[in-house]
């Protein structure tokens, strides 16, 4: 399929620059990575509401909580592994417990960080953020959705985590498309298998669906861009029709989208489920595409999982 390829973080930066104009309450923070996370876009137009904390992520979260307690809408950014793992307990106590208006927006998530290797590849962030009460978790499918979600988050009270990538992802949504927190979208209808993706794996699901169609199999594709609160209704409605399910995420199969779907299925409508994601392993250095292939995150892997799920019906 021919999609434009765009980096989500660039559109996060663009959205912040718009918010600098629109919302005098927005404060943006970074921990020495503004040029990479693109919070530099906000700093360029609104330096007085940009806070550089240096290489001190735990401190950033505490300061973010204090700013939010004083009425600010705070966007705090750094790479995914540092934004979540480094300061998980600070997020839990300072931000989530008192429901403060802090949006933790992490870039460079997943294995497509590439050459930096396992130390920098966040593959557990969805799991550990999802486990915290009061926390909203959003994984936009592409750059346009990242833009829309950023603006929606600014207009919504409460703690949230948003996961973005480093590399350019296929842009599968339309600019200006409506984005609702907690609402999944059916991108393609089918009756043989439900493919549920988040992040750039939604594009992989759409490609897999094309391949399956060529084999006479109609796959339904769902963009589950909000992992929490989870849209159980849309998922269950789909699997009642298709009878089996595949999840696809650039994240460990433990605790992320695959687990959220498994929980919803087991409680509501038990159908065969196959999970595409990293299999309880760390990543390694390499080119993003090579890593996606080696760790089983390609459209072909989704297609194969779909065939397996269908065979288990």
């Amino acid at each position, binding site marked *: 399929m021919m999609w434009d390829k765009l980096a989500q973080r660039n559109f996060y930066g663009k959205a912040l620059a718009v918010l600098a104009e629109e919302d005098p309450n927005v404060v943006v923070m970074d921990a020495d990575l503004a040029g990479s996370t693109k919070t530099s876009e906000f700093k360029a137009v609104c330096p007085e509401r940009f*806070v550089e904390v240096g290489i*001190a992520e735990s401190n950033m979260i*505490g*300061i973010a909580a*204090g700013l939010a307690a004083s009425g600010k809408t705070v966007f705090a950014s750094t790479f995914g592994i540092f934004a979540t793992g480094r300061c998980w307990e*600070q997020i839990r106590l300072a931000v989530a417990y008192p429901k403060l208006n802090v949006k933790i927006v992490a870039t460079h998530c997943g294995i497509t960080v590439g050459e930096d290797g396992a130390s920098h590849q966040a593959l557990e962030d969805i799991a550990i953020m999802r486990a915290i009460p009061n926390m909203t978790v959003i994984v936009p499918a592409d750059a346009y959705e990242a833009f829309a979600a950023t603006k929606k988050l600014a207009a919504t009270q409460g703690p949230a985590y948003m996961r973005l990538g480093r590399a350019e992802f296929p842009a599968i949504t339309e600019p200006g498309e409506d984005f609702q927190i907690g609402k999944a979208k059916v991108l393609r209808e089918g009756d043989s298998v439900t493919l549920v993706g988040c992040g750039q794996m939604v594009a992989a699901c759409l490609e897999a669906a094309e391949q399956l169609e060529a084999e006479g199999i109609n796959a339904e594709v769902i963009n589950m861009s909000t992992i929490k609160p989870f849209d159980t209704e849309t998922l269950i409605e789909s699997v009642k029709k298709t009878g089996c399910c595949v999840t696809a995420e650039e994240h460990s199969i433990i605790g992320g989208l695959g687990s959220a779907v498994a929980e919803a299925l087991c409680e509501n409508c038990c159908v065969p489920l196959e999970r595409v994601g990293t299999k309880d392993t760390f990543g390694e250095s390499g080119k993003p595409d090579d890593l996606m292939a080696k760790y089983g995150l390609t459209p072909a892997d989704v297609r194969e999982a779909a065939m397996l799920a269908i065979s288990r019906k």
Partner: protein
Amino acid sequence: MTEYTLPELENIANKMRLHVIEMTYAANSGHPGGSLSAADMMAALYFSFMRHDPSNPNWEDRDRFVLSKGHVAPILYAALAESGYFPVEDLLSLRKLGSKLQGHPVRGKVPGVEMSTGSLGQGLSMACGIALAGKMDGKDYRTICMLGDGELQEGQNWEAAMFARQAGLTNLIAIVDRNRLQITGDTEAAVGLEPLPEKWKAFGWNVIVIDGHSMRQILEALEKAANAKTRPTVIIMKTVKGKGVSFMENNAGFHGKACNEDEQRRAIEELRAVIQ
């Protein structure tokens, strides 16, 4: 606001100490030792120094207090109740199921509690955020953060200390309750903090060292801190853990343990003898 004399403030501190003994005894748990060492400063803050209005806890221009050593929630609750944020009778619900008075302070549950704390090392960062918002908004409220001494072993404090200096947070006052005891015992035997004043100086702060049980020194130090022009200020107050109850003084055993029946009777007798 009423102007209190030094003896009156000392008396309020002792009343708050009495509450701490009664609350933790009723809860059969909690942290009396560090609550008692902080009592004089808490009385000075809530009854003399801070601009606040118990009938309007969300008053925009109020001074903000963050209790980083959240385990001494009993002394904070005692100060809030004595100030009039909620009825003094509520204090005995400490740590009981359904109570607003959780084991560690929770923002949104108790009027007057600004931030949720209890995991050590986080309060100074939160206070930096509040002070920074004040600067951004051109407000002249002060932000006060009370830290334990053992707590300074958490590295995040020093991240916050560096940031406060960098951001020019002259409206921030840190107070270190230097009672020299943590759960394990002597702070210097665990992981030593000295030379503590020099450490803060090296991080770019004004440093004031006082006797934390001298009401006169406490008030003078707060006044000096409030007039800081270029740097944030830390008041290192030398205190006695368990201060005010003879057998609890300098006794690490009462860090996180309430009095038994006999101990609480003796403690109450001692405190009642000095309360006017």
